[in-house]
């Protein structure tokens, strides 16, 4: 979906996983940007109709970048800086009571 431009300042790289798949992105990227440059087309499903969504505003306004980070849900990926070893997962639809009880 997104790609780095040609002339980028050199910088470190971080490893993370998205739904278990290993990925890498530039240190300094937000979680949402890291997913976009890794070609992830959807990061959450809506609670009402389970429709896929992807980051829309990248500025904290729309909440379509919600993901689960290291087990904590409802994190705004566009505001969270990527960190080494993060486990990022798709946020699936509505939470069910069984999951909350787990």
């Amino acid at each position: 979906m997104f790609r780095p431009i040609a002339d980028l300042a050199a910088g470190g790289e971080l490893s993370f996983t998205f739904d278990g798949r290993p990925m890498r992105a530039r240190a300094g990227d937000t979680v949402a940007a890291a997913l976009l440059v890794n070609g992830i087309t959807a990061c959450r499903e809506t609670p009402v109709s389970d429709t896929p969504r992807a980051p829309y505003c990248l500025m904290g306004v729309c909440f379509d970048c919600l993901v689960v980070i290291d087990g904590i849900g409802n994190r705004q990926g566009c505001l969270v800086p990527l960190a080494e070893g993060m486990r990022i997962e798709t946020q699936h639809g509505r939470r069910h009571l069984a999951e909350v009880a787990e």
Partner: protein
Amino acid sequence: MTPIASIEQLAESYDLVVVGAGPAGLSAAARAAELGLSVLLADENPAPGGQIYRAVTTTPVRNRAILGEDYWRGADIVARFERSQAAYAPRCTVWSIGPDEAAPGSFELGLSLDGKARIIGARQVILATGAQERPFPIPGWTLPGVMTAGAAQIALKSAGAIPSGRTVIAGCGPLLYLLASQLAAAGCQIAAVLDTTPSGNWSKALGAIPDFLRSPYLAKGLKLMLTARRKLRFVSGVTSLTATGSGKLATVQFEQGGRTGTIACDTLLLHQGVIPSVNFSNAAGCAHDFDVEQHAWVPRVDAWFASTVPGIAIAGDGAGIGGAESAALRGEIAAFGAASRLGKLSEAERDRQAAPIRTELDKKLRGRRFLDLLYKPAPQFLAPPRDETIICRCEEVTAGQVRDAARRLGVTGPNQMKAFLRCGMGPCQGRLCGPTVVELIAETRGSTPAETGYYRLRPPIKPVTLAELAALPQTEASVKAVVR
């Protein structure tokens, strides 16, 4: 500047808390600190700059021509702030504001940083939370691949990333041309720019031309527009847009002068101007008015940008769209106001020091009216005509449902609409449906947005987790509040 890395490092209270580190907040905080106030500047982003100067100190973009000189000028504003004595808390969301019962006239603010929340005190508050892009609901705008134009700009500035495939930019407003040229300069493959500026707007804006001719926008704006038009495929007079695809964007369809077109694309960037982000000022209880020329809700402020709630001022684009340079000047003026209310500066001294800044501000705002009138979005993009268009992205409420409730159930305002349809009750708290709901109700009932009113919002203005709340340090007052 003292960086704050964890929530424990915050002081119990400050003379002034500034929310938002864009040009307005940075200038307000720097000036207030220079005037001897203890200042905290909190911003939910990881680096200072706000929208226009986003990531100006950290961006990986090396070729300065891509973002243009206006962008790099932000470095000076950040540098001045860094030289000041103010405290700076990045990655820190401010989610509530209320009166401090123990200290009348002061405030309690709720903040979260790194998954931990805290309540701190402030004698004065300046909200510099800026603007957001005006919602642009078209059929298919919830498909992955459809984004705001500002989102692409943020990805470029902060991550040095651009849309990878065929990209279409659609909408209107001065920023549209800027975004198109920045993305093109960065190597993005722009298949077309679909301009929705209504041609009838030109005649409405004519009267404002004399001021515009003397304004700083003219040369800049014309140059941008002409370069964008020369270099890119430009379609003017677009009257309808639809995004299609299954699971993700595949094409954008448009109508222009009675004919239709379809463009296959991977990314569609939507933009129809910016409006003040009012969630915080609204939840704080500040009065707002509907500004007919900017066609947006704007907080009511006085000459020092003080809101109707004593002690809370609103600076920058959050107090009405004026652009980056005027945002910085408004921040300064708001800081003078706060310092004088705190007794750090006599009124005479305040007026004297602020006078040259005011003159500068008047100059910067000259010509704004022309832009507001020319780029007022067409009615069909403010109130989507097709019933199936989703208008509340969170709760997936459609335009048809809102019209139906307004017509059949006689719902007169957005707050009542919430109760029937849950629009505005999702995590974005009405940020992306509020203006459209107002528009649809006004249209259906034959009233105006001003008569229709806006959502009445409550803190927390951003979701706070129970874990964060549970971890709040307990004060004597909070224990009493529960035990009593």
